[in-house]
């Protein structure tokens, strides 16, 4: 049970969610009619705008709040958000790129070993929870980091956290715990 310091694991960031504000009211109808690659959802009161270059989808509200999803890195999220704001600016709105913040990062990681979830859960009783009838993965929440890790018996992990650094830290944190409860390969 040695906490390995070099965890040469591949952490693949699959999704980065960011928000920003334009500090101005946006007329969704105008955006829907004149914008390119937009989907208008009047029943939800928002417009979805999709970008190709950083492949992101943005939900735009009339208040000027925009949520940007689908990026694969923080930098990409920011770049995409700026592009989006630029597009809105071109449509004629007095847009300001304000309050940009990455709110969530989703990453996946795979352990080189399988895991005994029940064992793991028992060992990390309050922090980890496992309800096989509800979900096949054990959920481990790191309060300090505000990160959540879902552990599957195959050894796959999905980690969500407020930023990429947190995610990396979380993986590092949990690796030793998982290592303890690894399932010896039978086959």
């Amino acid at each position, binding site marked *: 049970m040695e906490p390995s310091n070099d965890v040469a694991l591949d952490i693949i960031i699959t999704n980065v969610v960011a928000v920003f504000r334009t*500090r*101005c*009211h946006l*007329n969704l*109808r105008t955006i829907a009619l004149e914008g390119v*690659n937009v*989907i208008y959802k009047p029943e939800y009161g928002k417009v979805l705008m*999709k970008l*190709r*270059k950083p492949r992101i989808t943005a939900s735009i509200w009339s208040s000027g709040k925009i949520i940007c999803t689908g990026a694969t890195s923080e930098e990409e999220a920011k770049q995409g958000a*700026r*592009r*989006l*704001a*630029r*597009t809105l*600016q*071109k449509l004629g709105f*007095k*847009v*300001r*790129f*304000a*309050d*940009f*913040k990455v709110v969530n990062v989703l990453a996946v990681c795979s352990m080189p070993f399988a895991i005994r979830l029940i064992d793991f859960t028992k060992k990390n009783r309050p922090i980890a929870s496992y309800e096989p009838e509800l979900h096949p993965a054990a959920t481990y929440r790191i309060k300090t980091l505000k990160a959540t890790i879902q552990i599957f018996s195959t050894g796959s992990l999905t980690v969500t956290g407020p930023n990429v650094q947190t995610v990396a830290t979380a993986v590092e944190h949990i690796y030793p715990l998982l290592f303890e409860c690894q399932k010896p390969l039978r086959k």
Partner: protein
Amino acid sequence: MLSNSNNLSKLYLSVIEDVIENMRELILDEGLEDRVLEVLKQLWESKVMQSNAVDGLALVKNTINSSNFVLQLPPNYGQNFTKPTASMVNPAGQNVQSFTTKNNGGTLATFSLPPGVTYPVQIPAGVTLQTASGQLYKVNVPVMVTQAPAGQCPLPPSQLQPRQRVPVVERRDLCSTSLQPAPVVPSTVPKTMAPLKTEPFTPRPVACPNAVPQTTEQKPLIPLVPLRDEKPVVPQPAVQPTVQGNHVLQSEAPPVQAPFSLHTQMSFQPPYQPPLYKSESPFDSGHFTLDGIDFDSPKPIDMSLTSASTQMQSLQVKMETVLPDGSAFGASKVAAEETVRQEGHGGTADMSTHLEGLPLDASKLEMALLKDYNYNDALADIIQLDGPSDSSSDVEEFEEEMGGAIGENDFLGMMTAEALQALQEAEESSDDGKSSSGDDSVGMDEVTVEEDPLNSGDDVSEQDVPDLFDTNNVIVCQYDKIHRSKNRWKFYLKDGVMCYGGKDYVFSKAVGEAEW
């Protein structure tokens, strides 16, 4: 896509005709001349042809070479096909009877005409013909379908008056089939049915339908009497009536003037007239007073002859009132076609019942007229759903803008001022401690610094995959369903026009898939 281009050009022609007709009154009210409309029409048509979006050939109204109708011929009928002809040559009386029986046999025989068939075509009685558009016409009497020479005006102008509006004619007029000896006026069917027996036939106003549309023009919606064709034109001198008389039931339909002559004709019918008139009686009464009755009942697609006859009557009335241009003929025909097509399916069930009695009551005619008006609207709607009848968001937009504007203007004004201020301050000092953005003071500094670059905006964006689709390929239509999964889109569209590669295509349903 010959058929498509035909349909398309007909559609466009009908649209043009509709618009012109509807404007006619307004124009005249304004005190402008009719000439203006004619000029407009010429310009419009020439533009459409020039744009090459439509097959120019088809635009020539009277030169439809392709058969507009598809007649399906059951194998057993193949041989019988020619048979009637021969028999028809014989004394009509007997043959009539035989045909009658055939009809009564109830064989819904439909025979198909090879597309390239050349006219004239003789069609035995008792068959049901189906046009390309799906309309069914029952031939009660052996008929001969011929094609009028291009540009031929089926009806001599003199005949116009008594003509009934021909829903029939309208029907498929583009194909300008005409009765052999004479254009079939009420040729509801794309082909004009002519009695097999042509000898005694004089090219009379039978062409009514054709002529009628020309005269009519005012109501392109003339309901077509699909049945009309069926009745072979009686070789009666009474032209129109005969045409109308084509409807077995219809005898009443014959145009006003015609009726009387028709009467006489009718009486003769059994002897020389191949067609069977199922109900001569209504016609015999022949008194329908068409004065001032402007009927306009859509012709039912069914074979209810009675209804057809009624319509014929009404048409006739209309014809009288209208003196259409020769040119309008084609258009009105097209329009009528459209109408009929639409209406036909709808069933003028009410009309049928209405017509059942076959009385030539003025009241009934009026009812028919009223219904016709409805059809007119329906037809207009079919062709054009925008413009005056657009119920969409003109008002909504306005309201939204109003409401939005009221709320937004103030806000925007404020924002603008703030933005200006922000810009100024930002330019002066990199640090932005603006109070305006002071909601979240945390991290504000970073954010504010970044705001500025956005405004300068050069680096940002500018990808704009520059208009990949600076295309001219456009589809204007309605949608049933638009679905998306990730970046896969599926489109279920309806009732639209597509301009692709410079050509126009019309569709009632379209399905598409695309990846974004």
